[in-house]
């Protein structure tokens, strides 16, 4: 078993002190949420030197550096998009740190009293990722304790760098590669060269291009032909440093007939300033292979007045290249001040299938513009979209979805169900479906509902002794049931609690 021994499963280039520091994070991560570790920053702002520096910090080969520089020069000529139904002050891209990594032991744990009790409560309720954090922090016995309950291999990304990956040996036996993307660039350059940017091209969109230039770390997964990955894989992202952008990049390759279920969890501490998160996830799925990708996104949403919070601008795309390949995106989006995210499926192989299950909760002043794209290219392809949007407080929640049936995608089908739930009367829900059908044997169905949380349901719960907030959580969890069931079990529990937490203060 790997228990983060010495430098064993720790990324090269991270010095021993850093490892120690992060190990110790586990100790007070559990209690506080500001992790005061001395950081190694690249200077603020972005130019080609910073891009070179990031590349150098990761000891990257020249081809990679050039790839980044190319992306950077393209990005410089691009304009930030403004078509989403979100509204935020202009981002000053020169006022952001593009690289930060934990540096030394000079951490000063804040006392419990310094931590906002609200935040404390939130994370105490969340609980689950902390177990992994324990393992990653090398706490003795943590790994064994977890083994019995659940097997989830974890890669943790702390600000700009991957801290370490668990269960590496066991995975290696099965032929599965699970490591940080920077390790993969060094160790598996052929795979990376072949697939990186093959699903989300460098110039796909403004944030994707930015990410291509400056991504610092993320996860890499390779499942060989015919292999069913023996455990859930998971990446845990955390933004800690202030004024730092996080630009992680995930690449998953599922060879013919393989299967993997992958979980992604995100948190960030409370900050008054907004922080940028612009990630890319690329899934390559070959013949008869299947990938399930689940996200529980709980980046800091800002406070009740809309101050602070993460800007979450993410490009996620699956390319079902092989015939009969399958992808399932499941997302629970409760955090972030602004979310701009459309996990998409390119159904290229004949009979390939794409599914998208989503819960998006926006409370207080959060803005969410999220949905999916189903691009049907192959024959007899199928897709299914189930979106549950919940708006509370002053929040705005938009479902934006595109379904296209190309001329060659004959006899294909899509079913979309899009339900919105409103809590209170100051929030908004919007549904923006785009449908294009370019052949006459395919069928697209779209159903949408908008409702308010029903007072009679709440009263019924309260008459049985459930307080108003819990009653709302109960009813909303019921509303989201279909999506919660699509999550792996461990995450379903966590997500249910998260639903309750993120709606706190939405009634009364």
């Amino acid at each position, binding site marked *: 078993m790997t228990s983060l021994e010495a430098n064993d499963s720790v990324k090269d280039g991270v010095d021993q002190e850093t490892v120690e520091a992060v190990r110790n994070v586990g100790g007070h991560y559990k209690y506080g949420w500001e992790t005061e570790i001395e950081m190694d920053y690249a200077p603020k702002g972005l130019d080609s030197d910073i891009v070179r520096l990031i590349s150098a910090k990761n000891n990257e080969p020249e081809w990679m550096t050039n790839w980044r520089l190319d992306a950077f020069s393209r990005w410089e000529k691009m304009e930030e998009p403004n078509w989403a139904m979100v509204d935020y002050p202009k981002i000053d891209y020169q006022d952001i740190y593009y690289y930060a990594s934990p540096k030394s032991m000079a951490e000063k744990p804040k006392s419990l009293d310094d931590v906002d009790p609200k935040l404390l409560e939130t994370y105490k309720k969340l609980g689950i990722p902390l177990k992994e954090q324990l393992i990653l922090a090398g706490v003795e016995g943590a790994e064994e304790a977890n083994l019995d309950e659940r097997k989830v291999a974890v890669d943790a990304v702390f600000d700009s760098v991957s801290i370490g990956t668990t269960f590496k040996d066991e995975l290696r036996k099965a032929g599965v590669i699970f490591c940080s993307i920077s390790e993969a660039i060094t160790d598996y350059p052929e795979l990376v060269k072949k697939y990186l940017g093959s699903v989300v091209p460098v110039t796909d969109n403004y944030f994707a291009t930015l990410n291509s230039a400056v991504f610092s770390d993320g996860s890499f997964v390779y499942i060989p032909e015919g292999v069913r990955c023996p455990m859930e894989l998971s990446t845990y992202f955390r933004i800690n440093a202030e004024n730092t952008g996080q630009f992680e990049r995930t690449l998953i390759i599922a060879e013919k007939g393989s299967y993997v279920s992958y979980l992604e969890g995100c948190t960030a501490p409370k900050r008054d300033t907004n922080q940028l998160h612009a990630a890319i996830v690329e899934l390559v799925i070959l013949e008869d292979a299947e990938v399930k990708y689940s996200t529980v996104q709980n980046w800091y949403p800002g406070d009740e007045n809309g101050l602070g919070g993460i800007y979450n601008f993410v490009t996620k795309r699956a390319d079902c290249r092989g015939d009969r390949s399958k992808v399932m995106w499941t997302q629970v989006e409760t955090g972030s001040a602004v979310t701009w995210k459309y996990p998409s499926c390119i159904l290229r192989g004949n009979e390939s299938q794409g599914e998208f299950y989503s819960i998006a909760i926006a409370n207080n002043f959060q803005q969410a513009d999220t949905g999916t794209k189903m691009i049907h290219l192959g024959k007899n392809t199928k897709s299914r979209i189930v979106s549950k949007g919940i708006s509370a407080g002053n929040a705005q929640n938009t479902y934006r979805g595109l379904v296209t049936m190309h001329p060659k995608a004959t006899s294909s089908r899509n079913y979309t169900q899009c339900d919105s739930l409103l809590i209170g009367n100051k929030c908004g829900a919007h549904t923006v479906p785009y449908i294009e059908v370019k052949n006459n044997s395919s069928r697209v169905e779209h159903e949408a509902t908008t409702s308010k949380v*029903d007072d009679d349901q709440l009263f019924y719960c*309260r*008459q*049985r*002794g*459930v307080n108003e907030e819990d009653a709302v959580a109960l009813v909303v969890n*019921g509303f989201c*049931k279909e999506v919660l069931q699509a999550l792996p079990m461990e995450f379903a529990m966590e997500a249910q609690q998260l639903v309750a937490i993120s709606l706190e203060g939405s009634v009364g």
Partner: protein
Amino acid sequence: MLKITNLKVELEEESKEILKGINLEIESGSVHAIMGPNGSGKSTLSYVLSGKKGYKVTNGEVELAGEPILELEPEERAASGLFLAFQYPVEIPGVGNMTFLRTAMNSQRKFRGEAELSAADFLKLVREKAKELKIDAEMLKRPVNVGFSGGEKKRNEILQMALLEPKMCVLDETDSGLDVDAMKLVADGVNALRDKGRSFLVITHYQRLLDHIKPDFVHIMADGRIIKSGGPELALQVENNGYSDLLAEVQ
């Protein structure tokens, strides 16, 4: 147990008076029945007792076990021992009946400062009570009241009552829509709960239920007032002659 003094209630939306001065005292351990024509305010009374929004109390007082309750939140009243079996039980899609029951039970326990029931103890208890009411395991797994038949919904209300063990049970037309056997089950369920420390207020249109649940007192409600109170014989009188004689009497 429950003391209602000169209770007057208006709708919040429009100033329409629904309850026009209700007086009622229910002793610990006793069973009272309320009968009355449609629209006389019986359900409204049950809602006001349990704290539903939308009503304005313009006068009067309600005490539960000596404590005034009109200022309390619905969940506080519930935790203090007030239970309402709804005339129209509400459906909650996606929320398993079992989850709902457990949440309710533990919320009340927590409120009273008692420890939560363990999953195992809870399951055992539910299965036992469900069996007595002939509620099958399948129904416990389904979402709360969704797709339940009318009779199943009513039995589910009694199941909740049996689990929560309230002190003051208000049953609003729990017998409506039940077949003969189900009515017997519900009545048996209520009778099994009869206890020195527990009182019932049974709202019904039919003498039949009162054959099984023998009330100590029967009240007739009309146009927001209790116009007559008496023993079980009053229910028989209504069954045979309807309300016209009684209404004429008050005129």
